[in-house]
């Protein structure tokens, strides 16, 4: 087991976003987090990363999982779109957490970064400036950086938002390949429920009153949630 969340409550000031949330992530799992806008998916990711304190319950790393073994791909916020940095510099920065107090990148770090870039098909872009890339290319760069940092766990917040169908298909393919071939556990936020059901092993569905956590087989049978799949994520009230 890598992560255990018990009765977690997340809140901003006095506004509770998520409460009574319990779930676990094992190594090799692929957990998809779904839920409508504002249901607290990003908040949960930030809590898992220690960027936000929990207001109740506990999030524990098991099995000796360390912060620097986690890769993170944030939800696009556009803040760094104009940052003057080369693709290589950004991907390499995924290694800095791992190197602890080491100040410079080792040869191994550099080789690892090259491998990540090759895997994500951005090696030919390595000397290009990040701000001159297309949105989809930028997202690949951020994914490559996350992959560099991810020794055992990869956290992705809507990695395919803003990509066209082909590009997002490719990106999801790369993610599930990382999961299957390298055994990296994945926690991914997505709005693409059908895609989630195809690749994931487990589903976490955040909803105001009732959250669902389980493997995807039981999710498909769950009466509360199943219509989200068939009706493409329509609202509950209308579907009953």
């Amino acid at each position, binding site marked *: 087991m890598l992560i255990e969340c018990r009765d977690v409550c997340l809140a901003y000031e006095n506004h509770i976003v998520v409460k009574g949330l319990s779930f676990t992530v094992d190594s090799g799992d692929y957990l998809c987090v779904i839920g409508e806008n504002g249901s607290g998916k990003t908040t949960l990711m930030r809590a898992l990363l220690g960027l936000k304190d929990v207001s109740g319950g506990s999030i524990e790393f098991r099995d000796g999982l360390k912060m620097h073994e*986690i890769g993170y791909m*944030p939800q696009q916020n556009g803040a760094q779109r104009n940052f*003057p*940095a080369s693709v290589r510099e950004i991907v390499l920065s995924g290694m*800095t957490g791992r190197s602890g107090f080491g100040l410079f990148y080792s040869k191994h770090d550099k080789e690892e970064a090259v491998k990540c870039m090759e895997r994500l098909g951005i090696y030919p872009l390595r000397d*290009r400036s990040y701000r*001159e890339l297309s949105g989809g290319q930028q997202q690949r760069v951020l994914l490559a*950086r996350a992959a560099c940092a991810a020794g055992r766990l990869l956290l992705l917040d809507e990695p395919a938002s803003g990509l066209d169908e082909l590009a997002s298909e490719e990106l999801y393919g790369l993610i599930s390949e990382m999961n299957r071939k390298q055994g990296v556990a994945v926690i991914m936020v997505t709005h693409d429920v059908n895609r989630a059901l195809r690749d994931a092993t487990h589903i976490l569905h955040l909803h105001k009153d009732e959250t669902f956590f389980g493997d995807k087989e039981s999710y498909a049978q769950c009466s509360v949630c199943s219509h989200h799949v068939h009706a493409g994520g329509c609202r509950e009230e209308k579907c009953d």
Partner: protein
Amino acid sequence: MTEALNTLIDIFSLSFMVRAFVTGALISLCAALLGVNLVLKRYSMIGDGLSHVGFGALAAAAAMNAAPLKVAIPVVIITAILLLRLSESGVIKGDSAIAVVSSCALAFGVLVVSLTSTGVNLNSYMFGSIYAVSEDEMILSIVLTVSVVLLYAVFYNKMFAVTFDENFARATGMHAEVYNMISACLTAVTVVLGMRLVGSLLISSLIVFPPLIAIRLCSTYRKTVIVSAVSGVMCVSAGIIISFLIDAPASACIVLTSLAVYAAACIIKKLKGQVCRHRNG
């Protein structure tokens, strides 16, 4: 040619000019290096805010008959750390916090000056007096430069990671707050010393112009840092020489030289873009 050389030799035979030059070059190097991260993180206004706080502190020091730098440096460092804390905790957005603090400090300074009527020339702190730089200030600026250059040379990779994406840096186990704290302190000292050079009203130009020039021209972070440092030192040196030649205030010459270089950078960028488009058909 020989005439120009003679003028330069004349300039450097004056000891106050040498001090002005050395201090100016060093402080502008620090400001340009620290400025890269501040501008990229959208904290450009911090230099302005801190310099106003520095002004308030200097006014208070003059009123109390205390040594100006000994009061101003700690006060500005504390302010820088508080601003950092405030914007990290998200209580107030960074830029409005800076605006509030800076205008209050300025108001406080003005009030102290008018109520105490000390004979101290605070005008020099408003607009700088680069030719009156003291030995102490020059030594302090050497120490500062060594610290800033070491920070960038030794922690270069960490500085990049923290600037590009602080959340990611934290999430992957880096102590982003340590690097932020160190750069906040160094920025504070740079601002206080920079006030002597170009004055509290113009110090933010030392922090903002060189990174802007570099960001225009460069495609990688490494180049951006280097070009920023070089252009910062060049603008200040050129500004000081021009001010000496035409007998005008150094601070104004430095700022306007920077503006001219920035404009040149924009034009170069435009032309480059056109050449590329031409080549690609």
